[in-house]
């Protein structure tokens, strides 16, 4: 890690020399999956006034002695082409799925499979949040995992976590997995 940046910029990166370990996390998924809600929930902010993201949001969360810089990039179709500009030096990918939006499971699966093929995300651990479990029509995480063929992913760590970003349920479990995984990987 850190090798992706070359020359002087990597020097500047070291220059920061902060005592904390910084982790870059990118939060992606279709529009209306709940990425920004999840982000705000991670940062313990109000989740009631969220509008569709046209650009991107960043929050830094301290967890397990690490500084997690989480980048939430808008998921609308017209913004998705910009996703790959944010993947460089990513330590972990969070992919959010609206578990109640069965009609778009295929679409979200396609986007995810395109993402994991990106060079910049090679070997990068993947956490999938099966969001909106608070809705009655939500599919269980196991079903979604099957639909996404997650078991065929061999080149990276992955985990699927059922959650509700609105209620906060399951979010911390996901964060714990992230921290354990990053610590393992970085050491």
């Amino acid at each position, binding site marked *: 890690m850190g090798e992706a940046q070359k020359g002087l*910029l990597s020097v500047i*990166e070291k220059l920061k020399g902060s005592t904390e370990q910084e982790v870059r996390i990118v939060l992606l998924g279709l529009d209306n999956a709940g990425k920004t809600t999840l982000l705000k929930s991670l940062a313990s902010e109000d989740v009631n006034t969220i509008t569709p993201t*046209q650009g991107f*949001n960043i929050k830094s969360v301290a967890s397990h002695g690490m500084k997690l810089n989480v980048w939430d990039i808008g998921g609308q179709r017209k913004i998705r082409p910009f996703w790959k500009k944010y993947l460089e030096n990513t330590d972990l990918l969070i992919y959010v799925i609206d578990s109640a939006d069965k009609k778009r499971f295929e679409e979200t699966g396609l986007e995810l499979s395109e993402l994991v093929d990106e060079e910049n995300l090679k070997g990068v651990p993947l956490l999938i949040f099966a969001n909106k479990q608070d809705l009655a029509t939500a599919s269980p995480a196991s079903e979604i995992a099957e639909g996404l063929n997650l078991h065929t992913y061999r080149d990276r760590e992955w985990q699927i976590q059922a959650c509700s970003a609105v209620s906060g349920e399951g979010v911390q479990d996901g964060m714990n997995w992230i921290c354990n995984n990053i610590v393992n990987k970085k050491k």
Partner: protein
Amino acid sequence: MAEDDSEWVLESIVGYLGSPEWVVPVTDFLENKCTVFDDEDENKLAYTEIHEQYKKLVEKLLENYMQEVGINEQQFLDACTSPFAKSKALEAVFQPVLATDDFQMFRSLMVHKNMELQLQALRVIKERNGALPECLTDGVDVMTELQQQEMKILQEVLKKSKEEYDEEMSRRLLLEKEVGSTSSGCSSKLMAECDEAKNTASALSQHISPAKVNSNPVRKEGSKTAATGGGAERSSSSKPTSDRGSDAVGARVLPAVRGPVKSAEPSISSSRHAGEQSNSSQTTSEAWLEEAHREAGFSKPYTELSTSQQEQLQQRAAYLRQQRDKLHALRKEQQKTKQSSLPEEAPSSPTPAPSTTPEAVGQSQRNGACSPPPTSPPPPPTPHCAPPAQHSSNQKEISAEEKKKLEKRKHLADKLKEEVIKK
């Protein structure tokens, strides 16, 4: 590597970061690109692109420098991480370098720069006009007050009109009772009265065109017409007459209401603005659109816009570039006189070069579209008559948007003030 070695390297680096070779291109970049950076919570996609450009610029500058001085990256790193580099004073010097690796830091640099420039513009306005236009200072929300006033007047007019109508009706009923039983001539009498109403109505609608009608008589006439017109409606024989009557009332009442509002609204009735309103409200709304798009930071692909919008955007972009260049020229001039000590931190001189002042003001006035020209007095309280009803609804739309803009601007002014006080 020897300690003193990194010491001189550090000194040299710090010297370079304070020299014009570094400061001028970096400051130019910040000033050129900072316009889209606002302090909204959400980042625009354009920020990332600008950050990438910034990284390239800094990389190129530092590479050139290191080549020139003859140090390698390791020496650079050693020097910058040595204990000497950790002082508070040097932190600020290194900030623009570190901003390449830290988007958040870069963003705050840009937001700050944008505010700085806006503040500068505000100061220029103040110097030119003696005081800031009302819309750029805080105070009572003029618009709401005016709207309330407008509503009050409207209600009063309606009440008065109804009173007179009721009066007329009771009078008529009485008359009908008196006449109805005795003769069939009553219908002809009614007809005659209707004709009379018709005459008044048409006379009034002819009256509408002249621009200067005193508001009070107009209102009374309007309500009188309402009464007679309404009366005519009762007699089934003259539908067209009553229609006409009420039409005239509609046309009458609205201008009478608009009149006082306009006069009491110095911020809106600036010459440019008023001209725009009366010319075509479409131009105005397009201008808003354009403005809105600019404020949205071009997040929408340019190609999705219609050609006319593209054209307008281009015009706007060209205009902004021009204004920006002028501000730069001003800045550079100041920098030239102040290049001795860290020019980046140096406050710019309070008296701007006279050659650039008018343009800068032009920009600010354009941005703050509702600042009135200092010399023109508010228009006389006589109402401008005869805008068709549709037009006045357009005006209302504009004032709603205007209000939003005003609020936004006021908010910005507050922010700027806060920022200044903090510094």
